[in-house]
């Protein structure tokens, strides 16, 4: 029994190595000098750790500005999605009216439509309106989330009608009921929606790539990807330093909110 347990622990160790070594290699490379990478490419530890690569990233890319734009876009999208999903989910889950099934059908249909399907028409629409390279083109298309609306609806179905009736008797408006009474009850679901959406849009490469042609509203993943100029000798120390800067906020967020993220992925 003991050898079996030791074997399973060791096997798990191999798994950990497969997933953690690439990160470690990224961090270690970012502290090496370019000369060292050329001369001793397989050396594990940097012989004399240096911050040159990081300095180089900051001089090639306006990291602060790109990071700010990225955070702004990701936070705005997640908050707007929640603000809109709450009343929509409430109407779908709790109110009887003509068109309820139709509206719910629309939400479900949109779950099946990926952005890769819609970007050509939306790009053409925005370029006609001169909205390419604007925050609007990055945020507005994601303002309503079919998934978020669906999750709020599912969560509200389980809330007893008496809660709403009691609030109505107390004279609360529908607006108050939605945002003040029901929203706090849905906290885990809302946090999960926020996190899944925030992570997705912080990391998103496809949409900003398509909707931006210059650096007015360029996001960080685009800026970091640009550090690698194909063809000429790639400064891997610089690219990996950029990678660390790009990934660190997500790893930090992940380490404090893993529970809610998992909830957001499994509770669909």
């Amino acid at each position, binding site marked *: 029994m003991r050898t079996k347990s030791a074997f*399973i622990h060791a*096997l*798990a160790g191999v*798994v*950990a190595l*497969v*997933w*953690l070594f690439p990160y470690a*290699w990224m961090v270690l490379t970012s502290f090496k000098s370019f000369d060292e*990478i050329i001369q001793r*490419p*397989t050396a594990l530890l940097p012989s004399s750790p240096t911050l040159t690569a990081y300095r180089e990233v900051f001089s090639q890319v306006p990291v602060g500005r790109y990071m700010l734009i990225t955070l702004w876009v990701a936070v705005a999208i997640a908050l707007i999605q929640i603000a*809109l*999903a709450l*009343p*929509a989910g*409430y*109407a*779908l889950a709790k109110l*009887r009216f003509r*068109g309820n099934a139709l*509206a719910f059908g629309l*939400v479900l*249909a*949109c779950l099946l*439509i990926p952005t890769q*399907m*819609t970007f*050509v*028409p939306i*790009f*053409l629409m925005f370029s006609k309106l001169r909205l390419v390279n604007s925050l609007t083109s990055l945020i507005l*298309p*994601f*303002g*309503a989330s079919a998934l978020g*609306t669906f999750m709020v609806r599912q969560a509200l179905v389980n809330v007893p009608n008496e809660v709403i009736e009691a609030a109505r008797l107390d004279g609360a408006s*529908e607006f108050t009921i*939605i945002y003040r009474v029901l929203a706090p009850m849905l906290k885990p679901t809302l946090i999960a929606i926020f996190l899944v959406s925030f*992570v997705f849009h912080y*990391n998103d*490469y*496809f949409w900003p*790539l*398509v909707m931006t042609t210059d650096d007015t509203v360029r996001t960080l*993943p685009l800026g*970091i*990807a640009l550090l*690698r100029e194909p063809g000429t000798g*790639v400064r*891997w120390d610089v690219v*990996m330093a950029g*990678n660390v800067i*790009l*990934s660190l906020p997500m790893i930090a967020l*992940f380490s404090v909110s893993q529970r809610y*993220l*998992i909830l957001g*992925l*499994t509770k669909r």
Partner: protein
Amino acid sequence: MRPRKWSDPGWMLAPTVLLLFVFFIAPVGIAIYQSFFSWDLLTAPRPVGVANYLALVKSGELFRVTGRTLFFSALVVSGAMSLGLSLALLLNRRGVWFSFVRSAVFSAYVVSWVAVALLWLWILDPDRGIVAKGLHLAGVGTVKLLNHPDTVLPVLAGVTIWKITGYAMIMFLTGLQMIPNEVLEAAKLDGAGAWSRFRFIIWPMLRPTATFVGTTSLVISFQAFDVVRVMTQGGPAKASTLFVYAIYESIFMNLRVGTASALTVVFFVVLLSLSWLQIRAWRQKA
């Protein structure tokens, strides 16, 4: 419940319905419409009937892109599912160590595709990457995994599997935790070995989870773009030009809106029918 005012559902749903219509439903309609035109974004669009589709079929491009994407998806779905399930079974244990390893595997899911693609590009770099150097030292000679038409798709699939296996694992773990312990204990007392417990209890109860993971990873792999764009730009010799990259290329590099739209329509039809087929196949087996 009855709405207090007849207009209540209206204001509650209007923003969501409007945005979903403008940015999801309408674009699908527009894409279908534009697929019947020839338009280079500079001169006026010209109606051409089904010529865009015919050209894609005749040049063989459509079949090549679809075939490549299907091959890539098959690798990713089978890889991520089997690995995710194995890891879930391995790591579904109490203790700090296993919880740490679970987090390590799952963490790849939250790191951006760009970071993952750049990271593996460096690890696999033919001149100074650690894999190439290791193989060189082992006497295999120089390997250019990403520069060879036969190896490029399996490598991209491997990177994608590395990225999404954590997701599959988490889903399977949630499924595993829904299996009552008493059932497994009872089976153990009746003399059922590890394999028969898996075969007759665990697997049947995980089937709905497996369907879900299968469809989601199919959708994820079918939409693959970032790894292609960052790691290979569709090369060498178009060997890694997957569907979304082909759409991107036809509009942003070749300025052919009609072709891009026709590709988009086919992409959508193939994706929907695959998901539908998969769900049906799994339902029938259960």
